[in-house]
């Protein structure tokens, strides 16, 4: 066996960072009582790993090694500063008194990642900053990777993160899992960030590629961490929803890079491992009778996933689930989806009437899916000219290349 090369060690340290940074940072924030020194100490510990692991070998428990090294680095940093600011000396002494991190069996330590997730998704932070901060602090992505994922510049993301961290520090945002009546609302903000990440990866809002699998994978990973730490029904429902959507990824895009609708997808290309897990989670969430909108959306996705052919789809059940979802969280987008389900169950005319009612209220007029859904129903009703006008409107509103190609193909088919 060859000795691990320097490149292997670098790759290994990077993999440990991706897998463990969130957990290590969370523990250090608890030990040091402050966000910034904890992050410095963690980075210093990873630098030390790069320097020492090639010679000393990778420790048996890398996380425990990193936490303990980071703690000593933090004490060092305070000491060094204390040479100039003598008044600070007692802080280092206090820190030295902190209970030592067990070298082994650190799994007994409380998992602090949940606190970190709640801090990163705090409602006091700007919504776009919450996603960037969570990806960096909890998932261990670099600023550069986050910028690529959101198709924006690195300094823009860096600024968001700098501002968010300054806000956490200056406003002393609590580092804790909220309890009691505060929990559902705060959990809602956390789940919204996870779902935003997933959607950004599932259906990229702009750019040449229709999906960005890495972001969806991070969202699912984060969802699983939440599920492990806080198995509330809506967490279960959200993970189910993401798995069921993700199961269709390979079938959603044709070999030529075009969008393939659910009806035309090759169902044998769906990921049936994800589907089985997703359906089991939906059933678990529904059984609690405390479920919310994520669980209902997952239940709808589960009905689709359970149908071997498009014709076998239980549209009656899907219509009922949409009605329940609409009653729980009224939104014109959900109304639009319900209209599409009604069109399948009762015919295109019934669906079209529901969509026209939404548009008549003045809602969703600039939402391309309204126009493409209308166009599709008009086409099925044989109203060709109106269908053409609706597709043209949809095409003007779309910003993603594969979606444009899809609409243009439909326009050509109308003749």
């Amino acid at each position, binding site marked *: 066996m060859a000795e691990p090369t320097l490149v292997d060690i670098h790759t290994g340290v990077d993999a440990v*960072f991706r897998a463990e940074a969130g957990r290590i940072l969370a523990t250090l924030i608890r030990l040091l009582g402050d966000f*910034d020194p904890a*992050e*410095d100490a963690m*980075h*210093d510990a*990873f*630098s*030390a790993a*790069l*320097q020492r692991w090639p010679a000393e070998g990778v420790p048996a428990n890398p996380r425990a090694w990193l936490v303990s090294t980071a703690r000593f*680095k933090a004490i*060092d*940093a305070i000491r*060094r500063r204390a*040479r*100039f600011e003598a008044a600070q000396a007692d802080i280092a002494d206090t820190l030295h008194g902190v209970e030592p991190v067990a070298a082994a069996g650190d799994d007994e330590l409380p998992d602090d990642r949940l606190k970190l997730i709640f801090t990163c998704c705090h409602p006091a932070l700007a919504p776009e900053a919450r996603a960037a901060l969570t990806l*960096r602090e909890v998932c261990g992505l*670099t*600023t*550069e*990777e986050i910028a690529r994922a959101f198709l924006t510049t*690195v*300094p823009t*993301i*860096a600024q968001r*993160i*700098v501002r968010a961290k300054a806000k956490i520090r200056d406003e002393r945002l609590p580092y804790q899992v909220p309890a009691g009546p505060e929990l559902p609302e705060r959990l809602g903000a956390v789940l919204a960030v996870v779902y935003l990440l997933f959607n950004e990866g599932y259906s990229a809002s702009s750019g040449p590629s229709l999906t960005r699998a890495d972001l969806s994978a991070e969202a699912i990973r984060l969802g699983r961490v939440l599920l492990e730490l806080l198995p509330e029904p809506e967490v279960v429902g959200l993970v189910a929803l993401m798995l069921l959507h993700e199961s269709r990824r390979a079938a959603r895009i044709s070999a030529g890079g075009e969008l393939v609708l659910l009806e035309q997808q090759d169902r044998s290309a769906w990921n049936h491992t994800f589907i089985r897990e997703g359906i089991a989670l939906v059933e678990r969430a529904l059984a609690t009778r405390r479920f919310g909108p994520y669980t209902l959306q997952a239940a709808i996705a589960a009905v689709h996933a359970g149908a071997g052919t498009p014709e076998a789809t239980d549209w009656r059940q899907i219509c009922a689930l949409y009605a329940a979802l609409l009653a729980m969280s009224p939104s014109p987008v959900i109304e639009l989806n319900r209209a599409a389900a009604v069109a399948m169950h009762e015919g295109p005319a019934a669906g079209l009437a529901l969509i026209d009612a939404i548009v008549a209220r003045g809602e969703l007029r600039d939402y391309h899916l309204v126009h493409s859904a209308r166009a599709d129903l008009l086409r099925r009703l044989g109203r060709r000219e109106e269908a053409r006008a609706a597709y043209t409107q949809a095409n003007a509103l779309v910003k993603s290349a594969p979606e444009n190609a899809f609409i243009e193909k439909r326009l050509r088919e109308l003749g």
Partner: protein
Amino acid sequence: MKYICLGYADPTLFASASEAEMNSMMDSCFVYDDQLRANGHFKGGEALQPPNTAMTLRYTNGKVVATDGPFAETKEQLGGIMILEARDLNHAVELISKHPGTKFGPWEIRPAADLGEMMQQSEARRHKGGKPRG
């Protein structure tokens, strides 16, 4: 990842500081540099002598002309460069924002560009038609 950090300073600030102030400023900088070094972040760097010691070479009308001083007359002049090893841009920002040198003037942080591929392409261009290598 490597970041090149350019530290700017207003030279008149140094002229007006007392000796004790200067010493304290410099000491705090060196202490922080040592800390960066100890943690593997400081990959190299040099302080620069004042701008009036500089020569500028410029290609003008087909030949290289040497002039005194730096390119532009601005209040803040480049005082030193540092090659910093950091995980990402936010990590570099954190490390440099604690540098006492930020009190003297702005710092510019730029990721080092990897020209490896460009150099390979250039090499291929230069040896095209000539004797193939390797």
